């Protein structure tokens, strides 16, 4: 297991958001996390990446304990993420946004900057190279100099992914990457997610409400409900799991009532 | 040569001390007009330039730079010690004679490059006067309050030192911040310390508030204030509470026998009575002019030489001669008492 959670419990003011969650992601796989609104999916991401501090349990990544580490430490270990509502540095260029990902892989400081040492300059070139590579990979390189906020929403989501890739992770967490995308954009997102795994060897864990997308990309689907994992398995198994239908998917024929 | 002799007047004509500053500027102007009317100085007219210090160190350095660049041949003034301090170097670098007319913190002495002359008695003299006065009144337990600026802190420190050396007790030493309105905590400290007398070493504005609050807070002992509080405005601010308050003061116009004409002229010219520091600044300008006249030149080194050997002749505020440190050789303090909303002469 690349990422492993054991008995993770998270409470807010007496409200148990995650309840003894056991859960794992294998290296080099595509996995999803689904579940009703408020089930605790985003909270689980936040717990893994250090933004929330679960009261109990263990989270390990590649053999390292990550529970209650600071978010930047977790990123350094090799977990990258995107946010449910896009959080780019809006007033900065796409290029600069993606360069942010390289921060934790480089080290020049104030002295280097002021003195423009050869080391610092070489590092700057390296940062630019990687950033360009990541932008090309997701297909936003032509917008490198545009301000992030001026990009269409769909492209903003891609920039966020490029930025996450620039941290050179081994696992990437995507929180509802398809929300607000139209059909065509969704199709290319699916393509991209597969390439991340195939070409870069990065494992992907994704939260999504779009069942079409989830079923198409995931090798393994985990279902969270009221802070508990109620099911996991492949697309077929999940689709037909009565508990999942009851809690999350709803009956097809419910739509008929409309 | 018809060129005017340009003299800088460095006083705070804006800012919190502007009233005093304006008054001092007027007095210098009056003196210059008198000299000019009398045929001038070395046959030339005197022209004054206002170097507004605003009672602020940085502003006064700028103002000093301004004066120097406009080729002044000497400077009179200096009210707030803190603002006078950094200008010593500016004038010192140019070797210009500087007659300091009001600033009297002893901290100025070591910073003086030798070109400055202080014609107001220093804090050392005042603290001595104060301590002796308290002793003569049978005071044993003294409270000293300053305002955390160069002048009042210096005076307070010196008084504490002297008072303790004389074998008495300073029961509490307090500092308040300029611009604060509420002194109740200090008042209760004073009361609980069992002080018999309070010595306020800072300026009149907050002094008025302090006196009022001391009385309002039930303090019944003696209150004395230093020469920063000898303004008549103290009575306005303190109201009835300032009755019976003592002040150590430089000689102000109304208590100077020689100043009757000065008062008349000043009132005729400016429509108000001269404030506490007008006579000193008037003397300052006259003294500088005299030194130039005596030297027969405006050359700075020569003028400074003359000033150093000033012989003790009498001026409006009394005779002037200088110690080795260029401070006034005698103490010029008098003691005033508040009575019916005005200062009356108490003793010399």
């Amino acid at each position, binding site marked *: 297991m690349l990422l492993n959670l054991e008995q993770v419990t998270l409470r807010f003011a007496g409200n148990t958001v995650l309840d003894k969650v056991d859960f794992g992601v294998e290296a080099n796989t595509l996995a999803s996390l689904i579940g009703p609104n408020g089930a605790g999916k985003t909270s689980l991401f936040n717990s893994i990446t250090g933004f929330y501090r679960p009261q109990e349990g263990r989270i390990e990544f590649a053999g390292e304990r990550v529970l209650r580490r600071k978010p930047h430490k977790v990123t350094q270990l090799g977990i990258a993420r995107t946010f449910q509502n896009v959080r780019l540095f809006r007033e900065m260029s796409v290029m600069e946004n993606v360069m942010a990902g390289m921060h934790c892989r480089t080290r020049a400081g104030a002295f280097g900057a002021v003195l423009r040492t050869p080391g610092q300059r070489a590092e700057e070139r390296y940062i630019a190279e990687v950033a360009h590579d990541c932008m090309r990979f997701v297909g936003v390189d032509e917008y490198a100099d545009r301000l992030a906020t001026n990009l269409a929403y769909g492209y903003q989501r891609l920039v966020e992914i490029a930025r996450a890739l620039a941290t050179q992770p081994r696992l990437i967490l995507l929180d509802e990457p398809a929300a607000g995308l139209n059909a065509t954009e969704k199709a290319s997102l699916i393509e991209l997610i597969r390439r991340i795994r195939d070409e870069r060897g990065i494992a992907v864990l994704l939260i999504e409400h779009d069942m079409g997308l989830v079923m198409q990309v995931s090798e393994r689907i985990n279902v969270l409900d009221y802070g508990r994992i109620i099911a996991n398995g492949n697309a077929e198994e999940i689709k037909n799991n009565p508990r999942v239908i009851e809690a999350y998917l709803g009956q097809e024929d419910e739509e008929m009532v409309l | 040569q018809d060129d005017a002799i340009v003299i800088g007047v460095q006083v705070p004509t804006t800012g919190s001390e502007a009233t005093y500053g304006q008054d001092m500027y007027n007095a210098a102007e009056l003196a210059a007009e008198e000299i000019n009317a009398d045929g001038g100085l070395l046959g030339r007219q005197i022209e004054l330039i206002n170097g507004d210090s605003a009672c602020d160190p940085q502003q006064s350095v700028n103002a000093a730079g301004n004066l120097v660049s406009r080729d002044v041949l000497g400077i009179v003034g200096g009210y707030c010690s803190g603002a006078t301090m950094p200008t010593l170097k500016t004038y010192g670098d140019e070797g210009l004679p500087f007659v300091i007319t009001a600033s009297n913190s002893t901290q100025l002495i070591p910073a003086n490059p030798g070109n400055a002359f202080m014609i107001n008695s220093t804090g050392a003299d005042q603290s001595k006067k104060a301590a002796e006065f308290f002793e003569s009144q049978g005071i044993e337990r003294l409270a000293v309050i300053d305002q955390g600026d160069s002048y009042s802190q210096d005076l307070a420190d010196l008084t504490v030192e002297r008072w303790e050396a004389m074998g008495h007790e300073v029961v509490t030493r307090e500092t308040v911040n300029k611009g604060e309105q509420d002194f109740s905590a*200090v008042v209760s*400290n004073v009361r609980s310390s069992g002080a018999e007398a309070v010595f306020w070493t800072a300026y009149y504005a907050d002094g008025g508030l302090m006196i009022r609050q001391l009385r309002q807070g039930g303090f019944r002992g003696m209150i004395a204030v230093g020469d920063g509080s000898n303004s008549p405005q103290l009575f306005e601010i303190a109201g009835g509470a300032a009755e019976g308050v003592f002040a150590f003061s430089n000689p102000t116009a109304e208590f100077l026998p020689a100043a009757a004409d000065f008062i008349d002229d000043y009132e005729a010219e400016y429509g108000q009575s001269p404030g506490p520091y007008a006579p000193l600044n008037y003397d300052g300008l006259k003294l500088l002019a005299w030194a130039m006249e005596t030297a027969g030149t405006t050359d700075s080194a020569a003028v400074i030489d003359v000033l150093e050997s000033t012989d003790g002749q009498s001026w409006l505020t009394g005779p002037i001669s200088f110690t080795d440190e260029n401070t006034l050789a005698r103490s010029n303090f008098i003691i005033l008492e508040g009575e019916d909303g005005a200062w009356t002469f108490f003793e010399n």
Partner: protein
Amino acid sequence: MPAFETFLQAIVNGLVLGSFYALIALGYTMIFGVIKLLNFAHGDVYMVGAFVGFGVLSLISGVVGAGWFGLGIAILVSMIAVGCLGVIIQRVAYQPMLSAPRLSILITALAVSLVLQNSALSLTDGKYTAFRTDLGFGGFEFGRLFISHQAVVLVAIAGLLMIALELFVSRTMYGRAMRAVSIDKDMCRLLGINVSRVVAITFLIGSGLAAAAGTMAGAYYGSIWYFMGFLIGLKAFTAAVIGGIGSITGAMLGGLILGLLESFGTLVPWIGSEWKDVFTFSILILVLVFKPTGLLGKSEVERM
């Protein structure tokens, strides 16, 4: 004076000072609440309030005298007039800045502060103005503990004003709208709230409270001058932050705590009055280190 009486006296002193701080801090906090502005001109609004109160009292003292009744009228008139001034300031100097970068409006606030200060300076020649009343110096004496009548009445007035404000904010729809406006202005508009009126009312009340404090302080301490708002403005700002900026109860609490801290600060033997402010600010920093949003400030729960 025995230790216990000293202690009680310090409490009394702290309460009086704290009431002034609290009244000013309330305006700080309310204004911060609705437009996220640290209104550096607020201390000067207090100063203007003192001068307006003084002017009114001088005008009417011939008729009604300068006793409690006259002072009451002066406070009221000053509150209304200065409240309106607050609204004008908001309209002229702050409203146009709302869409600018957040710190820009801080500079207009500082500029307004300078304008108010220097106008008062020119009008008064920088002199202290004596604020005469007929309230007398009487008081209650318990042993050596002394509480002046003035102090009692002023604390009471301050208390009443604060209670009235608290009721307004917590009980009325407008009070609730004030909180809502501080969170999301556009949403408020969609709910039918006239945002700019809510902001104006906030400035009206905040400035009015400062004016009340100014007039009361003038009468209590006996003199006023153009710079009197500066230091107390900073202190009130500090009080608002200690209490948790944005919180009304916090501002009151912060004001009282700061008042008490200052009055006790000078009592602590090894501190002494010259270190009083160092003591106060150190406590402030400590409070914020351990309670980063102030005593009653809501910690911002971020949902990500």
